[in-house]
């Protein structure tokens, strides 16, 4: 599903140059649940942003679902993001003046789905994350866990190939974190490819494979025994 070869990325700040990714190679197959770990500054978020086409690599090859991602203009990048990717953020990033249902249907709006079908599909995903009865609430009326579940429903709405989660449990307490992970595991069980960036060991061990980053290089990439989040709830 994802193939990355020799990925480099540096940031330039004035005369200083910061080499963040120094040659990343890794593949993700369809249906995998991968966690990317590393201390802060290791480059894990940069990697995720490049995978999410929010940022561009300086060098290297990135192939997503057999489509080479290279020299995109913003219009095509937006189209690819809409078709291929679903984002889950640490701070949820829901639009605060839109109801849960409207938030979930946004990717479908940008995809050009008709209003009626959009609402049906958004409702379907809200049901999936167990928030059907909250569909008309604003984000401010939801708890942190609920917000993240709305965000997950939104990421799923356009039926993307890959879910990218950037510290999805970073703003949640342990119990809610496990609930969210349980949901993510469930989605993965249905065959969706998911990448999770985290710095929490217990969260990482709920995935099927851990990629460890340090100073812009992968120092360890190994499959792990998946711990079911439901065991903790």
């Amino acid at each position, binding site marked *: 599903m994802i193939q990355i070869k020799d990925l480099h990325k540096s940031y330039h700040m004035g005369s200083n140059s910061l080499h963040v990714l120094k040659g990343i190679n890794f593949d993700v197959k369809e249906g995998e649940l991968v966690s990317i770990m590393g201390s802060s500054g290791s480059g894990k978020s940069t990697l995720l942003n490049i995978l999410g086409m*929010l*940022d561009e690599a300086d060098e290297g090859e990135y192939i997503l679902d057999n489509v080479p991602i290279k020299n995109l203009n913003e219009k095509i990048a937006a*189209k690819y993001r809409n*078709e291929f990717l679903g984002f889950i953020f640490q701070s949820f990033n829901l639009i605060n*003046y839109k109801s849960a249902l409207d938030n979930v249907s*946004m990717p479908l709006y*940008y995809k050009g789905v008709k209003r009626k079908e959009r609402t049906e599909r958004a409702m379907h995903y809200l049901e999936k994350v167990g928030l059907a009865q909250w569909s008309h609430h604003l984000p401010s009326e939801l708890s942190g866990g609920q917000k993240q579940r709305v965000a997950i429903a939104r990421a799923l709405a356009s039926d993307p190939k890959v879910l990218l989660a950037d510290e999805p449990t970073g703003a949640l307490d342990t119990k809610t974190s496990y609930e969210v992970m349980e949901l993510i595991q469930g989605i993965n069980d249905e065959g969706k490819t998911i990448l999770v960036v985290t710095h929490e060991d217990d969260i990482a061990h709920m995935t099927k494979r851990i990629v460890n980053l340090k100073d812009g290089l992968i120092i360890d990439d190994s499959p792990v025994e998946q711990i079911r989040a439901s065991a903790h709830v």
Partner: protein
Amino acid sequence: MFSRDRWDEILEALNANKFRTFLTAFGVFWGITILVLLLALTNGLKNGVTADFGDFATNSMFMWTQGTSKPYKGLPKGRYFSYKIGDVAAIKSEIPNLKYVSPRNQLGGYNGANNVTRGTKTGAFEIYGDYPEFIKQQPMDILQGRFISYSDIEAKRKVCVIGTGVVKGLYDKEEEVLGTYIKVNGVNFLVVGTFKMSNSQGDGEQDASTIYIPFTTFGQAFNRGENVGWMAITAVDGVSITSLKQQVFDLMKFRHKVDPTDERAIGHFDLSEQFERINGLFSILSLVGYFVGALVLMSGIIGISNIMLIVVKERTKEIGVRRALGASPWSIKSQILQESLILTILSGMVGISFAAFVIWVMNIILDNAGPVDNFANPSVSMQVVFTALIILIVSGVLAGLIPANSATKMKPVDALRKE
């Protein structure tokens, strides 16, 4: 471009911060209100001043005789002469492009002595000897009966058409006017019609205290013979009387043996020239109105642009999220543009409506308070309203342009990182 979804998006965004939306809109509202009011006031001033010209056909001049100032062909200077009825035919036949040439004679005048009687009632009125076409130069509403006709002229009938002021002065209420006789300077005239000025302003009473009789009758009854007091000459539409008047003067000087270089012998008042001058003045005033109004409006537009910039800045993260979800730069841009456009047009419409309301109130007050000097019926035409709307649309787009561009300038990754 304006789908229902887009409407929802825009209304949601505008509703998200109502107070700010209101304040932003107020700038444009105020600007367009001032613009429309300024133009309406200019128009009111124009209406007031041009009303002093009455309804008289504006492409006209009045021409009378004065003493000669130069000796010519053996005739001394300081000689008085009079136009003759033959001059009218000469002018009509020799000078093209003239629409009406009306010879006139007058008896009585403002603050004159009593000159008209009917039974025991008397009054001082202005009596004019006129030709039928005079009503085309000076429009008036015939209330009863008719105006002077050519058969009156030919038969030198002693008939008259009297103004409402005359009726009031000489008749009892509800009394039948047509078919009665009034005595003008001792001569009996049959009343065949009554009139009032179509659009009288200020001079209404004087106009209404007027009696029209056939020109030929006037000459015979009041001993004027062939003499003509003065002439009212109107040129055809599209040809200015100002450009023709010198020909008329030259002809008159020739016919009355006046030195062609004698500037004093013929007096005239060029209504068209005066009217043009006033019109020019008001064109400039309108221009000033547009200019000042547009400047005020511009500060409102800058306000919108400014606020939209802040809105874009505040919503940087939201815009980042939208782009992560697949919003193309154009869809973001067009949303910002449309927000600004709708805000501008909406507040502009309210501004125009408010200005219209103020104008309406002004007119009611004017109606109740009676005529005011040099000011009447402030109003704007639909043309002005459409112009204002076009200005609004253009400026709404302009106001949104910079913010819309700045909204998509940032890379999505940076936008998402913003708190």
